[in-house]
């Protein structure tokens, strides 16, 4: 498809990473989680439950292709191949179409488990702000889901909502958070919680000459407000952690924390070794991590047989 714009403001950069300190050949159980969401896809590979490699990519129009794309990208800087996987679990909206997975598990379960690994056992409430949905999850200290609430019908409070806004205001989506705090005075209220109606309001504000950063602040506040509704319905039990793409938008996160009067867990690994080594902490890989950990647990408990081919 030909690109009509030089810069696409909603197109956040795709990334991948391989752990330089792990030699997978010396590992016992190599498990993978492939999370194919409606907007982004991630593959996470773990060696004996330790983070070995991951990728974060944009989901295309075809789920199996997207699963291959993110998996190949996660492995491209390593000599590990899919044939070396002992077990792979697919999750996310496109989980029924993950060709390299031996089975699937719901993304709710995977995100809770992944958040538990990333943020630690004190986490009782996980907010996953995804591409096209927003989930609030209560879990126990092992990351098991106790209760959840979800909004997947309305774009307000989702990544797509933020992408639509970035496109409208012509600012790269990853700059919106920081810039929303570079304001001199409090922004005007955006009364619509509907992304589409908010779009019209924003156009009006732009025409009136309201500074861009203020408009970004107003939109982040509107989104935070929408998410607060979901969280208050479920109830926030501390500690509280955020996963998913919008966790990277401090404009939304800080305003959300103010509204619910609770701070979210620091975006860094619970594991002190991982923290000390400064391993990258990508909130979008929580689902993939959970899936890879479930794969390991199933092998260890004899509930699954190794599918390794090489």
């Amino acid at each position, binding site marked *: 498809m030909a690109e009509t714009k030089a810069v696409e403001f909603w197109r956040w950069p795709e990334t991948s990473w391989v752990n330089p300190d792990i030699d997978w050949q010396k590992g016992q159980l190599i498990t993978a989680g492939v999370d194919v969401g*409606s907007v982004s896809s991630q593959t996470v590979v773990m060696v004996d439950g330790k983070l070995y490699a991951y990728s974060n990519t944009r989901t295309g*129009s*075809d789920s199996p292709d997207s699963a291959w794309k993110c998996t190949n990208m996660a492995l491209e800087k390593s000599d590990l191949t899919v044939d070396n996987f002992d077990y792979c679990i697919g999750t996310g909206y496109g989980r029924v179409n993950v060709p390299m997975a031996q089975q699937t598990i719901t993304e*709710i379960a995977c995100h809770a488990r992944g958040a538990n690994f990333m943020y630690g056992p004190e986490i009782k409430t996980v907010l996953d702000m995804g591409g*096209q949905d927003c989930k609030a999850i209560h879990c126990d200290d092992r990351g098991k889901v106790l*209760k*959840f*609430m*979800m*909004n*997947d*019908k*309305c*774009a307000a409070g989702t990544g*797509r*909502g933020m992408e*639509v806004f970035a496109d409208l205001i012509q600012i790269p989506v990853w700059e919106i958070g920081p810039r929303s705090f570079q304001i001199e005075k409090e922004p005007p209220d955006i009364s*619509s*919680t*509907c*992304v*589409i*109606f908010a779009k*019209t309001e924003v*156009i*009006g504000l732009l*025409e*009136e000459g309201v500074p861009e950063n203020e408009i970004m602040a107003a939109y982040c506040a509107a989104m935070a407000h929408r998410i607060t*509704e*979901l969280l208050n*319905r479920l109830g926030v039990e501390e500690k509280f952690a955020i996963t998913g793409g919008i966790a990277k938008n401090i404009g939304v996160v800080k305003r959300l924390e103010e509204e619910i009067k609770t701070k979210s867990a620091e975006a860094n690994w619970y594991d002190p070794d991982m923290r000390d080594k400064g391993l990258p902490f990508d909130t979008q890989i929580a689902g993939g991590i959970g899936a890879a950990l479930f794969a390991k647990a199933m092998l260890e408990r004899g509930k699954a047989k190794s599918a390794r081919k090489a």
Partner: protein
Amino acid sequence: MIVAGIDVGGKNVHTVIVSDGNIIAKAEGPTGIKKAEAAEQFYNEALKQAGLKREDVERVVATGSGGKRATFADGYIADAAADARGVIRLVPSARTIIDVGGEEGRAIKISAEGKVLDFAVNEKCAAGTGTFVDTMARALEVPVEEMAKMSLQSTRSIPMNAQCAVFGESEVVSLIHQKITKHDIARAVHDAIAGRIGSVARIVGLENDLVMIGGVAKNVGFMDSLKRELGMNVVTPDDPDYVGALGAAIAASAGVLEEEVKAKVVEKETIEEGK
């Protein structure tokens, strides 16, 4: 007596000049950001068309979400009241009105005398409004009128899962990739919005005769979907998007300069519980 009605909608302004009960001139155009100016502009246009000056008009009544910005008007009545007055004049047998404009979807139950008995409105979510249709037409890369006709040529119904216009756009793109024909997608779009309008309408109860007005009434694809959704016949008067303005003009001729209506605002329940 010459009176005027000004309907300042979320998307468009419609103005009518009425002389002894008959529309003698009308004008329409985009509301845009500067609502007061748009209202003035299209009122002036209608006056010009009728060959009249402002002084020739006895009374002006405004309506619509931006109606209060028409400061030159002598009065303002609620949309539902304007719709009721306009529809009962054109279709005396009307008992249920469905009005879908650019940014709102309404259902009104009226009495034989044209009084509003019940009123439900969706004004918070673009998915039950003309904006949804416009957004999907953009995703299909065809003009709205063409999408409407294409929908009539569809031979099967594909369910559309998205309830949100933003997600709907992605869903349309994905349906195109799945090689679903644009005709079938067009029908799915109209079926989807007809379903939502249907639920708003059922809140006030569907009593014959059903009359549909507002800009979306001109969409043949939507009207086909709506009749199938409701399982009832739906009457559409000529110039359905002018009926609100006509109703405001009728209020003007009756000397009614103020009329509010209590609304049941439909909240989109989007939060699901799970275990």
